[in-house]
């Protein structure tokens, strides 16, 4: 103890071996390898898989779950879970489409109100989890059902079509290098960049990790853990609102049955596949992005090789349990 060795802050220049080790243990490498293996598998099974048009389709299919998974990552980093993400998005989607189509609200206002509805749900989740200290699992299971019910009550089980162009912007495509991209995919990447920035470059991000890692230590160092939790659920609500907008852009509908089956589990699966620990405090949004693409590749690939939809549920279910098992075995608390 009494000897001072290299306490210099400057990292000593890494040898190639150290560099290799650092790369191999970087948080997103495992998910990346999993993604490459998955893609290799499906490209062997189907000639169409690696075609540019198909890959850009995968990205378009990923964008909604990908954005939901950003909010989900925030929540899971704090050792919480948000089961309501899919139905809250569905509710936001119905609010914005119904207001724009049936209630004659100007499109941009309708859009904003739809997003605000999701933010409202985020704040509700946040107040219950942070303020009343209720378990996130139960709170969001409750709001899942509330959002589900409200979606059907507000929509009267009607589907809204003939949407104004403002609501469809993110479904529009542009061509880049022979592939079609939607503006929604660009939006998703921008949101990932923002989330990365917030989590890794700001004090707020540090506090999110600390609250998930050791909430008691975070509180004792003077972090307002309730405020951090509230901000996390509120921001998650915001991402669900934006996901709702992307969903509307993609489907060109306000559909009361959208977003209520696969999106919830897919978003959580994406986060866990991306290497974020359900115990909180560990993980990255870059990993989540890769995880979301893995989920998208699975759904797309299974469809391409002719696996029925119901078996896709089966595979996703197994996948998420496998990912959680890996998380358990590698991240088991050492303190």
């Amino acid at each position, binding site marked *: *103890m009494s000897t001072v060795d290299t*306490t210099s*802050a400057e990292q000593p220049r890494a040898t190639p071996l150290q560099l290799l080790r650092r790369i191999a243990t970087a948080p997103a490498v495992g998910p990346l390898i999993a993604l490459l293996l998955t893609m290799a598998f499906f490209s062997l099974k189907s000639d169409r898989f690696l075609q540019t048009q198909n890959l850009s389709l995968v990205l378009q299919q990923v964008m909604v779950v990908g954005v939901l998974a950003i909010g989900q990552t925030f929540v899971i980093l704090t050792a919480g879970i948000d089961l309501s993400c899919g139905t809250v998005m569905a509710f936001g989607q119905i609010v914005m489409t119904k207001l724009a189509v049936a209630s004659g609200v100007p499109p941009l206002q309708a859009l904003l109100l739809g997003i605000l509805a999701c933010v409202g749900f985020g704040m509700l989740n946040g107040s219950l989890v942070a303020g009343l200290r209720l378990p996130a699992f139960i709170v969001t299971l409750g709001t899942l059902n509330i959002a589900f019910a409200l979606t059907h009550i507000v929509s009267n089980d009607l589907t809204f079509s003939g949407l104004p162009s403002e609501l469809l912007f993110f479904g529009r495509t542009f061509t880049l290098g022979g592939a079609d991209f939607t503006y929604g995919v660009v939006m998703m990447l921008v949101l990932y960049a923002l989330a990365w920035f917030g989590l890794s*470059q700001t*004090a707020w991000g*540090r506090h999110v990790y600390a609250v998930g890692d*050791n909430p008691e230590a975070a509180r004792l160092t*003077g972090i307002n853990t309730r405020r951090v939790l509230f901000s996390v659920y509120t921001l998650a609500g915001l991402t669900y609102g934006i996901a709702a907008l992307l969903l509307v852009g993609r489907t060109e509908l306000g559909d009361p049955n959208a977003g209520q089956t696969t999106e919830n589990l897919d978003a959580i699966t994406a986060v866990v596949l991306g290497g974020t620990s359900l115990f909180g405090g560990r993980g990255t949004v870059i990993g989540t992005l890769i995880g979301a693409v893995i989920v998208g590749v699975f759904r797309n690939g299974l469809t391409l090789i002719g696996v029925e939809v119901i078996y896709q549920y089966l595979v996703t279910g197994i996948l998420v349990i496998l990912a959680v098992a890996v998380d358990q075995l590698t991240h088991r608390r*050492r303190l």
Partner: protein
Amino acid sequence: MSGRQPIFEAHGLVKRYGQVVALDGADFDLFPDEILAIIGDNGAGKSTLIKALSGALQPDEGEIRLDGKQVHFRSPRDARRAGIETVYQDLAVAPALDIASNIFLGREARRRGPLGLALRILDKRAMRREAARHFADLKIGVQSMAQPVENLSGGQRQGVAVARAAKWAQRLAIMDEPTAALGVKETRQVLDLIRRVRDRGLPVILISHDMPHVFELADRIQIMRLGRRVAVVTPHTHTMPEAVAIMTGATKSELDRTLVRDTPRESQ
């Protein structure tokens, strides 16, 4: 008796929980540059006293003075703002975060200029540099400030907690059973570190069950019994068995007789 003023003191603290009286008019004082150990049997009021001093609870009666001025800590945050840092036995660090992040947790340094002001970007390099300098000052040897705390040994982790307290404590540090969760060798590391913290001019309140450590480290020892301070002794005036006898009530101590008002290092 010297004319030195206590930096931190409490008089007549009372704390009741229903029928149970945890503190029954307890007194306390801490002088500059000393390690004051607080010992007592289970239920003697040690933890309650410490919680009152660190803002974790509010006493029903009595007063607490910092630099002679009365203070009312409504939360640990208040105490921290007043310059009092506390180290807990259960390793209050965030294991997945790196050392520098733990040292600066809740007090992150931001970049200068527009990047820091508008985007609130962290200055990670400055935090690592500063943490490394601080660790070198305290002679804590670790490889890199960028490694996660969970890669450290238990002693080094508690070293991080002590270093954090030493860095931010303007007035004094409270160490609540800091070695209770550690092995023999690691305990030694942390005890040496606490002594270095004191030597750098930060007074320390040490709560410990371990008599040999208390007698090795403390300048003065406050003995608690039945919610009161029954004696203040020094390792020079009393032996360990004598202190234990006072602690358990086997020896009735006349408070004024055993009260040592000055630090022995000063009086020698």
